[in-house]
C-alpha cells in the first residue's frame, strides 16, 4: 500500500488557498483605494458625482 502523504496534499491546497485569497484581497483593497481617491478628486474639483441611480421623472 502506497503512503498517502496527506501533509503534501494539505500543503499544496493550503498554499493555493493563501495565494488566491491574498491576490483577491489585493485587488479588492486596491480598487477601493482608487475608487475613494476618485470620489475625493471629484469633490475637490467640483465635478459632479457619476449617476448610479435611475431617477423617475
Amino acid at each position, binding site marked *: *500500500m*502506497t*503512503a*498517502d*502523504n*496527506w501533509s*503534501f*496534499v494539505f*500543503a*499544496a*491546497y493550503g*498554499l*493555493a488557498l493563501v*495565494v*488566491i485569497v491574498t*491576490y*483577491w484581497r489585493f*485587488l*479588492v483593497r*486596491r*480598487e477601493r483605494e*482608487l*475608487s475613494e*481617491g*476618485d470620489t475625493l*478628486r471629484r469633490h475637490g474639483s467640483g465635478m459632479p458625482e457619476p449617476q448610479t441611480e435611475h431617477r423617475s421623472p
Partner: protein
Amino acid sequence: MAFGLAPREATQGNVQRIMYLHVPSVWVAYLAFAVVLVASIAYLARRSEGADRLAHASAEVGVLFTGLTIATGSIWGKPTWGTWWTWDARLTTVSILFVMYLGYLLLRGMIDDRERGARFAAVLGIVAAFNIPLVHFSVYWWRTLHQPPSLMKPGPSTMPGVIVAALLVNFAAFTLLYVYFVTRRARVLRLEAEAEA
C-alpha cells in the same frame, strides 16, 4: 471534487489529489498567456488601451498561476519522484515561461512612458507566447521525468471517467476564477490610469 468525488489513486495514493490543483493551474496559465498574445496583437493593430489593459491583467494572473503550478508540482514531486526539483525539460521550460512573463511585468513597470511601455510589452507578449507549445510538447520532444499529458492531448483520455469528471469541474472553476481576476485587475488598471491622468 478532488476530495469527495475523485477516488484514491492506486499507484500514488492520496498525494495524487494534487493533480486536481496542479493541472487546472497550468491550464489557466496557458489560457492567460494565449489571451496576452491575442490582446498584444490587437493592441499593436489598433492601439486600443482596453487591449493593453487586458494583456497586462492576463499576464499578471498567468504569472500567479504559473507560480502556483511550479509550487504545487514541486510539492507533488517530493513524495513521488523523491526530489523537490530537477532540471527536467518540462520543469525547465515552464520556469523559463515564468521568468519571461515576470520580465514582461517588470518591463511594464520600468518604462515611464505608458504608450512606449505598452508597445514594448506587446512585442514581448507575442514573443513569449512561442514558449507555450515548447512547454506543452517538451515531454514528447525530450526524455523527461515529468509524465506526458493525460488530458490536454490529441485523442481520447486514458483516465477513468470519474477522474476526468472531477478534473473538468476544476478546469471550469479555475477558468471562472481567471475571468473574475482578469476583470477585476483590468478595472483596477483603468482606475490607476484615470488617477494618473
